[in-house]
Structures are given as C-alpha cells and as structure tokens.
C-alpha cells in the first residue's frame, strides 16, 4: 500500500515539474463562449469552469501550489517543533515550563480556526497561508521531540559525552537531534494530508491562494455555485485533493512500519 502512495506522489511531483509541457491549455485563458463544458468534451477532457478555463490545465498547475504549500510547511513546522521540543526537554526547569505552556496554548485551538485567525490578521495569500498553517502545525512536533529528548537525555551515552566536556548546544544538535528525526519524519508524512486539507480549506474560504490562481480549494469554492447542474467543476479538484491526501497517508503508514524499530522485530 505504501508503494501505491509513493507512486502517486512521484507522479504528482512529475506533473508539477512538467506542468507547462503537460497542460493542454493556458490555465488562465478564459473562453466565455465555451463555459461549463462537461467531462470528455472536445479539447477539454475534464471540461471547463464558469469562465471557460480548461479544468485539466488548472488541475495540473494547481499541483504546483499544493506541493509548494506542503513542502514549505513540512520544512518549517518540524524544524520549529524540533528546536522547541529538544531545548525544552534537555534544559528542563523553567525553560521547559515556559516553552511547553506556549505549545499548549497553540494546541488548545482547532487547527483550521487558528490558521483562519492568523490569515485574517496577516492578510490573504499563499505565503501567509503557509505561515499560518506552519504556526498551527509545529506544537505536536515539539511534544514528540520533547518526549524523545527526555528519554535520550538520561541515557548513559549522553552522560558519557557530558563528561568528555561537551556543551548543551553540541549535545542537542549532534546527539539528540539525529535520534528524534525518525519519529518526526513519520509524523510529517502522516501530517501532510492534514496540511493539504488545511490549505484547501483556506483556499475554499477565500483566505489562501487568490483567484485566478488555480489552487484546488479555491477551485472547489468557485465550482460550488454550479454544483447541482455542473458537478464536475467542484468534483474534479475535490478528487485531486482526496487522492493526494490518501497517498500521503498511505506513505506515512508505510514509513512508520519501516522506521519504528519496535514493530520491525515481528
């Protein structure tokens, strides 16, 4: 199953890279005489939207936006979480208390609601959507990293390196981070689906990518007005979101089986 997920994602990356070659039409070219064409109509395999833009082309270009958001969030959130969690876990005491209570505050809000609030404050747009989603995504990573750090820091090899005279910075970056990373990677892949949904949700509410950019969530939102008579305008990007989220989940599951040493003994 994990391989299916992996192949879907490889396909997605290839589509995103080769978008100008693969797309049959310009994703922004409007053709009002040809609006709301059904699936399999001539020249437009997936039909056209309310402004006569080719849905397939928009879907293909939309994959770039999805990957951009997921990629950036998957970089920012785990790194922030790792930093906060390991420092809190290793230093302990007041530092731990303060950092973890801040984490708790972020965890107390539902993700999309908090992201909405951030985007509303920062202004709509892809960059701000990325920032907002990252801000809501890092606390779970901080918790995982802290829990790992607590078990690692009391181990003998950390004492051994301490009594060789290593400082806290060196121990955290060279000896604790490498051991936290595998559990974080699993969490990232399992989180990706959520990130895609959050990004699409923001786009749907008009707070993510702005028109005319072909973001999948925004495309659903545009198709919503015609959903009864022209269902495919909303369903096509919906299917895309569904497929990619599923692919990330399958991959995450597979990675967990590979990276978790407790399971691999079976």
């Amino acid at each position, binding site marked *: 199953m994990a391989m299916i997920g992996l192949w879907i994602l490889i396909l997605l990356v290839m589509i995103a890279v080769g978008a100008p070659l693969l797309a049959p039409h310009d994703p922004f070219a409007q053709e009002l005489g040809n609006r709301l064409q059904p699936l399999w109509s001539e020249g437009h395999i997936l039909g056209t939207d309310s402004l006569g833009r080719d849905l397939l082309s928009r879907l293909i270009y939309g994959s770039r936006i999805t990957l951009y958001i997921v990629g950036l969030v998957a970089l920012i959130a785990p790194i922030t979480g790792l930093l906060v969690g390991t420092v809190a876990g290793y230093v302990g005491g007041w530092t731990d208390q303060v950092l973890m209570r801040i984490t708790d505050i972020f965890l107390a809000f539902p993700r999309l609601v908090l992201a909405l609030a951030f985007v509303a404050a920062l202004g709509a747009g892809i960059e701000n959507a990325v920032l907002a989603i990252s801000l809501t995504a890092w606390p779970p990573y901080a918790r995982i990293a802290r829990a790992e750090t607590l078990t690692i820091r009391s181990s003998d090899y950390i004492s051994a390196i*301490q009594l060789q005279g290593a400082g806290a910075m060196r121990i955290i970056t060279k000896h604790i981070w490498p051991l936290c990373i595998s559990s974080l990677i699993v969490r990232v892949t399992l989180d990706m689906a959520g990130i895609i949904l959050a990004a699409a949700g923001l786009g749907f509410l008009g707070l993510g990518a702005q028109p005319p950019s072909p973001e999948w969530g925004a495309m659903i939102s545009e198709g919503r007005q015609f959903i009864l008579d022209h269902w495919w305008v909303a369903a096509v990007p919906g299917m895309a979101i569904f497929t990619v989220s599923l692919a990330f989940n399958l991959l995450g599951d597979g990675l967990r089986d590979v990276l978790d040493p407790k399971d691999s003994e079976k």
Partner: protein
Amino acid sequence: MTLLDVENLWVKFPSRQGVFEAVRGVSFTLGRERLAIVGESGSGKSMTGRAILQLIRPPGIVTADQVSLEGVNLMQKTEREMRDVRGKRVSMVMQDPKFSLNPVMTIGQQIIEAYRLHNKANKSIAYEKALSMLEAVSIRDPKRVMRAYPHEMSGGMGQRIMIAMMLIPSPEILIADEPTSALDVSVQRQVLSIIDTLVTDRGMGLIFISHDLNLVADFCDRVLIMYSGRIVEVCDAKNLHEAKHPYTRGLLNSLPRLNAPRKKLDVLSRDPAWSEAPSVSGRV
C-alpha cells in the same frame, strides 16, 4: 605528588522525606597511583566519582571544602570552565559500554569528536589519532571498527573503545566506574591490563571504583573502603587481607576462597555505629 585533593565532599539529595546524603564528608588525595574505591552498592562510590566532575543531576547538591586539581579548586569553577576540565583533564569510563556509546553514530565519529572537543585539529589528523588510539587498546582491525556502529561490537570491544575515547584527549586522571562489571571474567583481565599499561605509561592517576575486593587487591595501590557514604577504612592494596575494620573483614569473609574452603560463608551483620563513625581520611 598530589594530582587531586578532595576534602570533606558531600553529595545531598533533597527529597520529600528529608535530605538524603549519598556521600558524607569524604576526603582523599590521589597522586600518580591507582586508587581503588570499594564498597557495596549504594555506598556512594559512583556518586563520589561523579561529584568530582560535578556531574550530579539537579536536584543533587555537591559541597566540599575543596576539590583541587593540581592546586586549582574545581568547586569554584563555573559550568563552562568545568567543561574544559571534563574529558581533557579528568575523564571517566562508565560501567556498561552497551549504553555509553551513541547508537546512531559510528565509533570513528565518536572518537574523533572526543578528540576534537579539546584539540583544534583537522579531521585527517584526528582520524589518525583515533586509529592509533584504537590500536593502543588492542583493537585488531581499527579501520573497520572506525566505520562500525556500537551494536556491531562485543562488550569487551565496546569497553576498550570507551577507554580509547576517554583517553584520547590525554587526561591526567581517569575515573573508572566499575569498568569491568558488565564483562565476563576473561575479558575483564584483558581490559584491566590495557587500563594498567595506559595509565602507567602516561603517568596518570587512576580512581578505580569497584565492588570486587580480590580484583582491587591485585590491581590497585591503595584502597578506600566506603560504607553508607563514608570512608570506613584506608589501606594499602597488598595489605587488604589484613584489614581491621569489621565491615571490610565482613566483606572479605563473605567471599569464598579456594585456599580456605568453608562450609558456610559469613553474612554481613551491620553495626549502626559504622555509619555514625566519622569518615576516615584518605589523604596522604
């Protein structure tokens, strides 16, 4: 010549049931010799070793009139200054090599890191140093071992690697905290003789923490016997079997001996007065 002078060392742990005193006023000196600290588990041997390096975890508290390394009092040093002492001047080998090596770094990386923590040397020099150090602890194929991970090593090899790692910054004092108790008897001797050669060749001081009286009598110059956080007796290792304190006698008599077989071995009967009696000074 005195390398280390410890005077009135205490280690305390505040707890809900009051303050627990793990080490209670221990004093001793260490020259370029092999000093053993023996005692049953919980007598404060390891705590003494860790307290010298000030590596007692909070909430533990270390107090002492002085812990001087060649005349400089370590108690007055800041944490940052202590980092230059640890490893470079005083080093410690721990009990179980399986847990004292980082499982996700190769042995080479770890030894090289240990060297470069205290010496500004580029990687190729450090690599050569690490290779020769591994040879010094009689590792047969050092190039392969440098690339290997800790789990690929046997216990005895692991402990020799630890010794190599701890000795590569050439410290003046090595604290060996039960370095052989996780190893089987034949490997024990081998590891001990390596420690012995290295310590003698480099003119280092060795603090050897153990609970094995026979081993200590063979291997060390002087012995401190600890009981409930205090030193109850100090004697020369070769005279250990003539020790006078009832606790030491009890420990000796509870061991079977080939040349004097007995039907029943003695069981230690503890006298509360032992833990009340003031600590004997191990200072020379």
